[in-house]
């Protein structure tokens, strides 16, 4: 899909010569570089809009350097076939490209770590600038490239557009893992039961959101969340959240019918700050992992009540 958009926009730009992309793509002007945070309409990356942004910016450079457009397409096709070959070969080695006995004996796994710039590219930062608010959020590598620093300013001034009465949130969401030809892949954490984060915050309460894979069933607005309280201070904090504690919410509201988070198709994880307190904030993350805590036997922390859900108790 990225290829198709590249074709469309590339040819458009070539036709207009060096006319800047603002004229060619009108919807780009709303999200040009004066937004400090890289913003998208929905937290889940829509590859279309994002790739037009990149190719428009890259398109200008391409014109100046006279690089062949066909070469770029050929490179991308080669990359996708390489990924396909990796997938087929990995299928023979074992699940996710690692031998089976390693996967079975594994008790702890590091899923995201922050040791270089390429690790930062796996995350998207959003703020309420997409709805017209004034919060800013940035993501950069921390000290000595050992951690990632998410910082910014939260502002709960509501946008005066007659539609939103509350505002003020900042979020960092992981990109959905992609396979060959931009197919969506998902994480399988079914043998683990706790989420482990090593963070250093400033005392603000954050919210951890997990989204499930939307391959077969449309679940774009549903997610499972829980709170992460940071302590503040110079000491690294280990946050262990068992997956049984995550509650279900749809469209931003907690639902009455609660069901436990199923771990076999996890699509992305995200951190949100929306504690209605204006001011600067920062969160330093060392790594994010999952592990199997043998002492934790709870399956699900919230039971459904017959008052709110009479149909479940018939």
């Amino acid at each position, binding site marked *: 899909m990225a290829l198709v958009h590249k074709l469309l926009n590339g040819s458009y730009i070539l036709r207009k010569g060096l006319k800047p992309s603002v004229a060619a793509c009108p919807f780009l002007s709303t999200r040009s*570089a004066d937004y*400090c*945070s*890289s913003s998208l309409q929905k*937290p889940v*990356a829509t590859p279309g809009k*994002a*790739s037009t*942004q*990149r190719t428009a*910016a890259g398109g200008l450079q391409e014109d100046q350097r006279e690089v062949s457009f066909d070469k770029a397409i050929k490179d991308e096709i080669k990359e996708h076939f390489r990924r396909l070959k990796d997938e087929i070969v990995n299928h023979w080695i074992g699940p996710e490209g690692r031998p089976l006995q390693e996967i079975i004996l594994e*008790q*702890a*796994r*590091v899923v995201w770590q922050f040791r270089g710039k390429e690790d930062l590219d796996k995350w998207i*930062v959003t703020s309420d600038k997409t709805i017209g608010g004034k919060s800013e959020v*940035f*993501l*950069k590598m*921390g*000290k*000595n490239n*050992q*951690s990632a*620093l998410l*910082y910014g300013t939260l502002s709960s001034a509501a946008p005066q557009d007659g*539609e*939103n*009465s*509350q505002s003020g*949130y900042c*979020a960092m969401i992981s990109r959905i893992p992609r396979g060959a030809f931009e197919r969506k892949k998902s994480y399988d954490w079914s043998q683990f039961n706790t989420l482990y984060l090593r963070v250093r915050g*400033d*005392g*603000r*309460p954050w*919210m951890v*959101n997990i989204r499930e894979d939307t391959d077969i069933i449309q679940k774009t*607005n549903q997610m499972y969340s829980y*709170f992460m*309280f940071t*302590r*503040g*201070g*110079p000491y690294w904090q280990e946050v262990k959240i068992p997956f049984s504690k995550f509650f279900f*919410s749809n*469209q*931003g*509201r*907690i639902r*009455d019918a609660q069901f436990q988070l199923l771990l076999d198709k996890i699509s992305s994880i995200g951190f949100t700050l*929306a504690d209605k*307190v204006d*001011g*600067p*904030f*920062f969160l330093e993350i060392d*790594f994010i*992992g999952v592990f199997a805590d043998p002492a934790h036997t709870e399956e699900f922390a919230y039971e459904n009540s017959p008052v*709110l859900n009479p149909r479940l108790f018939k």
Partner: protein
Amino acid sequence: MLARGLSRGWRGICGAALTGAPFSQVPSQVPRGLHCSVATHSSDSSLVPRPPEPLRQPAKPLSPHEELFRPAPDGARDKASFVRAVQNFGQHNVHKRGHVDFIYLALRKMRDYGVEKDLAVYNLLLDVFPKEVFRPRNVFQKIFVHYPRQQECGLAVLEQMENHGVMPNKETEFLLVQIFGRKSYPMLKFVRMKLWFSRFKNINPFPVPRDLPKDPVDLAVLGLRHIEPDLSARVTVYQTASSKDSTGTADPTQQHIVGIQSPDQQAALARHNPARPIFVEGPFSLWLRDRCVYYPIQLDLKYGRGGWDDYEFDIDEVEEGPVFAMCMAGAHDQATLAKWIQGLQETNPALAQIPVIFRLTGSSGELLASSSGLEEPSPPPPQEQEEEEDHTQRQQQGQS
């Protein structure tokens, strides 16, 4: 147009009846029921005495009943005057015309009067509704949302309670049953609030008291105790702010300094090699509920690498050097911090031989490494912004 208004109201009611502040991507819509009730209000303009409208903010139109919230001649805006304003509304019109508008206005004014966390005031506001009128009496009224604007208004009151973390009590339940009936949306929201608030009441492993101390020294002590996991650490107040009754201009040489150090840290400092310097870093920000305090820390930076032992996480752990002490001070310039170091030297005599380097930043929360040496804090801010812009450009172009 009527159908569209009804469907919008339906969506609004169903959305607002669920708990959970709209923190994620879809913000909530609090429907404003102004369209229907303005028509009823214009008829009784003769009943409410209209004072001469003062000329303030000509762009913003005054809402009806705004004159009830005019500040009193002595200017006190507190709970008593708010309660008086609410009661005055009931006195002027027995039939309580325009109560929906009045309740929305009162909800907006609560923050100015400082009563947004007070349950009794919310109950008083719910008391403004006429009782027993909005309860559905037959099956048709039960199917269709009976008195939708009033139910939306009740939901707005409960939603503001939820936003401020106020737990409703039995009096609220009784009022809601009397006004709306047991099967109404406000009652449903009340049940949800009771359920989810009680579930999430104690999930904070580091609780902060609701009423923060006003005294900066006490706040600093609370903040330092909050940060330090070692319970045997001792808090020392090196200097308190001298003039308690200052007229707004704080004396720059007499800011408060409060430090904390645990016995382990004292021992580590005594063992510290005098050849390696100690850095004073800061200021970092710490948020306690809605107050931000700043603290510099004194540590030894040594980026060692160690393996993880407990759960076989296959990652190299990052070790920053041991933290020796922390402090909170009123000002973050070098003079104040030098006084703190002098105070620390009394309990840690080894500190006299160790060189101390100040790495202070001007802004909050960002760790900027300035060059070593005893120099003035903070590299110039425009430099920071350039870094950020470069990075955001790269972030934007890096999207795929």
